[in-house]
């Protein structure tokens, strides 16, 4: 099973997206990153609230995923709104974050725990299209979660982006 970690960063109006494809041991298989996008003030005004939709989903999300030369089985994101890219791609999208006990229960979400208590409990949310696959996918991800932190690869992408920024600034 290959996991596509889709991530984007917005710092000081500089936008950048990245996708890290890993195997079940979270070892990197492929990594693609977009160039830095600096929006003009006028662009931001004219795109308005649709900016996120256009930039993060259509541009970063879909284009990054379709640029992958390797197949992916699941897309993982930390942004709930990205779930809607499911309609444009051929694999389930999972919104993943740390479990919060005060979170309302929801039929599209499922909690997983690390049996060794090495990592904090997580909660997965799936898009409506894949509702019937939620348990199956959760089980698969839970298997991985026994040994590997499923959230950690996002940090790698973030660090990679910061690393690029550091050198671009030199």
């Amino acid at each position, binding site marked *: 099973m290959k996991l596509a970690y889709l991530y984007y960063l917005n710092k000081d109006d500089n936008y950048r997206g990245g996708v890290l494809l*890993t195997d079940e041991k979270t070892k990197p298989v492929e*990594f*693609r990153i977009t*160039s830095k996008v600096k929006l003009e003030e006028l662009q931001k005004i004219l795109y308005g609230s649709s900016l996120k939709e256009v930039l993060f989903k259509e541009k970063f999300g879909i284009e990054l995923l379709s640029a992958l030369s390797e197949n992916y089985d699941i897309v993982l994101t930390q942004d709930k709104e990205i779930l809607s890219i499911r309609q444009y791609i051929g694999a389930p999208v999972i919104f993943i974050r740390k479990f919060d006990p005060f979170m309302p229960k929801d039929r599209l979400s499922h909690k997983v725990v690390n049996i060794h208590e090495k990592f904090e409990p997580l909660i997965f949310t799936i898009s409506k299209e894949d509702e019937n696959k939620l348990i199956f996918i959760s089980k698969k991800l839970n298997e991985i979660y026994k*040994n*590997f932190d499923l959230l950690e690869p996002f940090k*790698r992408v973030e660090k990679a982006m910061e690393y*690029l920024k550091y*050198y671009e600034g030199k």
Partner: protein
Amino acid sequence: MKEIISEQNLVKPLDIEIFQLFSSENIFEISENLIKPLPDFDKIGKIYSGKNIEELLKNDSKKTKKEKLKYKNLSLLDLLKPILMPQIDFDIPSDLAFYKPLFNYQIQGIKFLITNKSALLADQMGTGKTVMSTTAMRILFIKGKIKKALIVVPSNLISVWEEHLNKWAPEIQSLTINEEPDIRNIMWDLNSHVYLISYDTLKSDYKRKENLLKKFREDIDLVILDEAHNIKNPDTIKSKAVKFISENSKYRWALSGTPLQNNLKELLSLYEFLNPEFKSEGIISQDEAKQLIQPIMLRRLKKDVLPELPDKLPPEIEKFDLNPQQKDEYEKVLYSEKERIEYLIDKHKGEKNYKFILRQNIIYSIQKLRQICNFPKNSIESPKADRLMEMLSELIENKEKVVIFTNFLKEGIEKIAKNIKHRFDGNIFVTYHGKMNHSQKKMAIESFKNDKNKYIFLGTITSAGEGLTLTEASYAVFFDLHWNPAKIWQAEDRIHRIGQKNKVNIYNYVMNDTIEELVIKKLNEKRIMIENVIDDIEQTEEVVSLDELFEFLNIKKRVEQNG
């Protein structure tokens, strides 16, 4: 009313470019597409081939032909590769993260280094300080805590470090700064994760091009000093060069098997490297100095970690450059011996005992060359001897016994003995060779085994290689290698057998760009074959073929021409 006309569509498309860092086929290699121009970046990976380097040197007065040189200047994307690797977790199966499973004491050592920005790893020789520091450095790169590291080592350990970096830190790209000065000027400016340099080269560049080093040190994150006692004297240029280049470094690690605790000046010099803010205020006592260093020092003795060590540790190969006198002699002898052999080829071609004659003569030539690799004529000084004395000093300080093997009496045993007498007390060693009678040999063995002050057993492989039990020693140094690799392996195996109680560390000394280098290469190629015939000396004589002996003298073509 003024009309507003816009000629262009103000809703500009959000153009982005996507580029690939690596594909799954070989994720730990740098894929070619990384060097494609990336418009958004200033620094683009570039291959500096021999031609490029020559072009860059055009303005320099000294032009050097460096056709074989090829360095990759890492792109930004190459540089960030370690960050994309999974975090190293000591609890996950070791095959994921490490070249070989680490021992528990090594894991402790790695954790000690990671958690100490200033650290002195003073474990005893042979416990794997290089493995520990390489792995700790790799972890920091993967965590994104460091971006650039410098490793300073004695020149003979460059190849050891290169091998360790290759095996133990596969995601990290390293660059060895060991070319001629003109090329080094360029190398200091190339992008890399790790820069490997010898103390002498660093000293030379500090004297020659301080500005280059000043620029280089601006963004350095980690400096590792191997055999850190090299900076024990704060007044030397070597020490000053090290302290200069590491001025801005966030992490500073010193590796040394010599405790240094008994010499205040040495200790303080090292401490100044580890803690640059330290300013010695007046005279401090030995105890105060120890108190300073204690919190940042980790020292384990081999006997403490013995149960964890495997029965058979692979030999460590240390490589040296010939000194000028040796180089001169070596080249002259090589030239004359090649001419002699070529003459013999022509003279005896087609004769019945052609192969036998050539074999004997080539062996004679090889012997001559090997002796020069040990010492130049009429001198007891050589890089091998210097290193051996350094090693002995460390071992004796740790009250460890050591066996030294050589193939030669005059250019081995005798000159090594003179060095030992010159450097240490003459009573600390015994010799063992074919010119001694039975009772002398017996006395030498007994003395080495029973006298706690006899630290060194110095013997020839042929005499001492069989039937001896030297379990008192857990270190063995092969001062030179036999032209027949089988003999080396045979002797090593014997040491391992006789050293079952103690786990033996073996060190092989090899001279760069000499016949010894070819021998060690052959030795690795033939390892399996030799192991199969190790107990049969008669067969092992034939392990190296005539063609291979020719190869040692680099006259292969001539042989082929003569069938």
